[in-house]
């Protein structure tokens, strides 16, 4: 299974990369970690005519604290570096938990943080994590810079708002509020495999244990990663009860996801998983927030 031929460019700086992308237009594609793109190319399901390899653009790999207590992560930072980084572990433990579910270590050693987000696989973890964490995405092109909220970034399966000459350069994560509990829940056939349904949630409580904010991100159950609305609507301002969580979980399963049937599971089964996982996720996040 060998890939079809392509033209290859290996810029060593961001500006060189942007020049090349602008020149190539629709025929150019960014090559980041390659862990999703190259298997597709080996199957000849993807046949880009030109690749712009960012692996030599060292300035795109970094993890920097931001002034508000969050983090800025360069697009080419390897997943395993993010996973093992002390600041990430301290400020976003849910991101570390999420990353541990991304395939296996060998893939994470090469796969990149930004690459996974730009690839926008509806069954992937990092796009959903970027929604959960309300990420801000820096998009560069030869003509300049723009910022896109993660919630505006994903438009369809493997489709984002990126234009052909643009690249995702940085992911900025605002800090988690105090008294925020999080939870990662996934059902996959095997460890490291694609989820059949997955839920990542964050619950912020006030001093009286009432909900200030609930964010519930879902993936593998729709055309893109999704952010459910009902949980916040129902739970905000309340002390969450098991019944309320159950009601929210049932609603999200019925109305806020769009799983299909495939050889691994039926739609009914997956909706059931969403129901169960939203319930488990919110329950765990609330517990954690209280500590």
């Amino acid at each position, binding site marked *: *299974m*060998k890939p*079809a*031929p392509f033209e290859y460019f290996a810029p060593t700086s961001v500006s060189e990369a942007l020049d090349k992308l602008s020149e190539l237009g629709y025929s150019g594609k960014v090559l980041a970690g390659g862990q999703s793109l190259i298997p597709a190319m080996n*199957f*000849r399901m993807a046949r880009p005519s030109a690749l712009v390899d960012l692996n030599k653009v060292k300035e795109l790999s970094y993890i920097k604290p931001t002034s508000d207590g969050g983090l800025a992560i360069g697009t080419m930072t390897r997943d395993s570096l993010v996973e093992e980084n002390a600041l990430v572990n301290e400020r976003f433990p849910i991101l570390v938990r999420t990353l541990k579910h991304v395939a296996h270590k060998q893939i994470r050693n090469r796969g990149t943080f930004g690459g996974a987000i730009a690839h926008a696989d509806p069954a992937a973890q990092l796009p959903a994590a970027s929604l959960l964490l309300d990420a801000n995405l820096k998009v560069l092109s030869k003509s300049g810079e723009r910022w896109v909220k993660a919630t505006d970034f994903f438009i369809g399966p493997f489709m984002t708002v990126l234009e052909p000459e643009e690249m995702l350069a940085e992911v900025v994560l605002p800090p988690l509020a105090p008294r925020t509990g999080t939870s990662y829940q996934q*059902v996959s*056939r*095997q*460890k*490291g*495999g*694609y989820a*059949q349904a997955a839920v990542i949630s964050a619950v912020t409580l006030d001093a009286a244990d009432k909900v200030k904010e609930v964010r519930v991100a879902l993936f593998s159950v729709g055309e893109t990663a999704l952010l459910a609305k009902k949980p916040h609507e129902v739970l905000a301002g309340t002390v969450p009860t098991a019944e309320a969580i159950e009601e929210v979980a049932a609603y999200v399963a019925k109305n806020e996801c769009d799983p299909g049937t495939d*050889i*691994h*599971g*039926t739609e*009914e*089964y*997956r909706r*059931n*998983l969403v129901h*169960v996982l939203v319930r488990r996720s919110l329950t765990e996040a609330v517990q954690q927030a209280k500590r």
Partner: protein
Amino acid sequence: MAEKYVGQSIRRNEDPRLLTGNSTFIDDINLAGMLHIAIKRSDFAHAKINKIDVEKAKALPGVVAVYTAEDLGDYWRPGPLQVPPPSVIKGAVFFARPLECIAKNKIRFSGEPVAVVVAESRYIAEDALDLIELDVEPLPYVGDLEKSLDPGAALVHEDLESNLAADVVQEDGSWEKAAAEADVIVKKRILVNRLAGAAMENRGLVANWDANLSLLTIWATTQGPIPMRNSIAKYLGLLENQVRLINPSIGGGFGPKIMSSQIDDVVIPWIAMKLKRPVKWIEDRRENFLGTTSERDQLHYAEIALKKDGTILGFKDVFYHNTGAYNPYGMTVPLNTQTHTVSNYHIPNFYTRIKMVFTNQMVVTPVRGAGRPQGVFVMERMIDAAAKELGMDPVELRRKNLLQPEAFPLRTGIIGQDFVEGILDSGNYPYALEKTVEGIEYEKFKKEIQPKARAEGKYKGIGVVMFTEGTAVGPYEGCKVMVGVTGKVSVITAYSNQGQAHYTTFAQVAADNLGVKVTDVDVVTGDSGQWSWGVGAFASRGITLVGTAIHNASLKVREKALNLASKLLETPVEELELEDGVVRIADMPEKSISLGELAMRSNPTRGTVEPGMEPGLEAASYYGPPHGVTGFGCLGMIVDVDPETGKIKIEKLVITDDCGQPVNPMVVDGQLHGGLQMGIGDGFYEHLVYDDYGQLLTASFMDYLFPQATDMPAKTEIIHSITKTSLNPLGIKGVGEAGAIAPPACMMQAFEDAVGLKDMFISESILNPSKLYHYIQKAKGA
């Protein structure tokens, strides 16, 4: 003679080479001027070929040739059949349709080869595949086993009246009588799904024709080097010894690598002779799923008749067996199914009928278990169904009906894959059952652990099933054993190795008889230039047949050595010892002569010899058993089920296995671990799925799943039962497939036990969390 090696767990001779990257696998073979092959395979499952346009492909720079069936001319021919039809079975109907190596007028399954590209690199060859255009007329897809026999169904083979490939009935006693006398009859429809061998190494072949020497050298990942070599020689018009077929190291076999008369062994050597350049074909993973044979895929309508005390009176099984688009492997797989439904329990009356059908799917040939898992699955599920019906404990019902040790040897009344009536040579089934029941702490689980877990909202369950494994069938295998002038020993056979430790276990047998170190025994397998008689690695027959031949041959060599030493040391043979590679006089150890010296002396270069003399310390031996020997055992499993998600965890596995005398217990355990992994895959992960157009949906590891390390239980216990067979001198039975046979049946019993719903009966052999969830929902709703 002290038993030094046989029975010992010793390190493998072959490991240092494999561990350090010093083995040669098929893709490691590079010859000067070598060309690379890629095969164009049909996307259509059923179609008439109008035209295959290869002109653009031929014009691509770097492409040397592109061939279709037309280019082969008279060389193109279907088959031959790899396994003959079961004419020995009375009334058997069999329509032989051997494999077509490359599609000529018609395409019969998605993945069937239609063209072959030869290029300077594999990369370019694949570029050329993209340029080949197929002009076809699609035909209706035949995929459903039952519907394939509907009148008016599209015909996979248009020269036949229907898609019936074979109809074989075997019976003993009277099912009707049993049914009439029964208190309870349980009927079930049971589906066994299709799975792949999926060895870590895909298939491959390298061919090199030296016209000056008239020598065609072929390296191939085949499990059957000699029959493949003979077939290649025959059809290319060469003498057998003008074709040298060599097995490189092979990365796993599991059955599909035994198939021959496929595009690789038929067309590639022809290309090598035509182009007069070495050619290499390495299958890739996608191609392996599409183009390599697979197995299971049966639909059973089974009935079991019992008295209310649990005594089985009779069993009936009418089943559809999917052979795919052709039936080159005869009736081997479904005959194994038939024989293994009735080989654990006392079944005085049975009727079993195979309806083999053609479909537009990949051809079915053995994958580890080779039809036995289906037979065991059906019988074990029927017993579980009967247990529910009678309100009996499933272990108790088995206990009641097991064949007892006194019953052996037992004629089964069913003709098996070796075309003789099955004889269960020896066994102690109750012992295996009791050891497993004890090992898995069955009573404690049912009385304490399960109720306690349930009270905590956890669903744990237990399964215990029996299995047999018919092994070591004929016709024969053979070997040569030779002492070299250095005193080291050569064991040469044609029995292919794909990881089963032959380089060690075969050496152990020879080393014991010749008093040498096992590391001084060099085993050569699968090189027709060194030994050219044999059949192949299948039916777990290696250690039994080849081991016995080695045992006999090495005893002959021992005799020659002692006789010669006796002359040279002027001492009667009875007073001689052979140990540490040296023959010495028992009470005068300083008078000795080494085996190497004896080998030298046994091959004079001058002078005269006595009439009938054979030079060297060398002997050949062949062994062909009258029938196979039957391994057996009992598998126990404890599982945890999450009914909300259908996810499962296997917490504990206990298997009692009997393979007669284990030659190397560590190797036997390794075979069982691997077999269990495949069996667990068989039950919950592995499934080859075709869509409604005959497209294979599971053609990569993303969709075809099998157990990873974390899917296997943390605790696996193996209990060895040793019932030596009297059929061969070492008392050996095969074990290669044993582990793979029972897990699906055991898992389904355990899942049902964990969930504990009265109306839940799992009637298919491959589950996943979604299916399990639906079974639970259905049973709850009932």
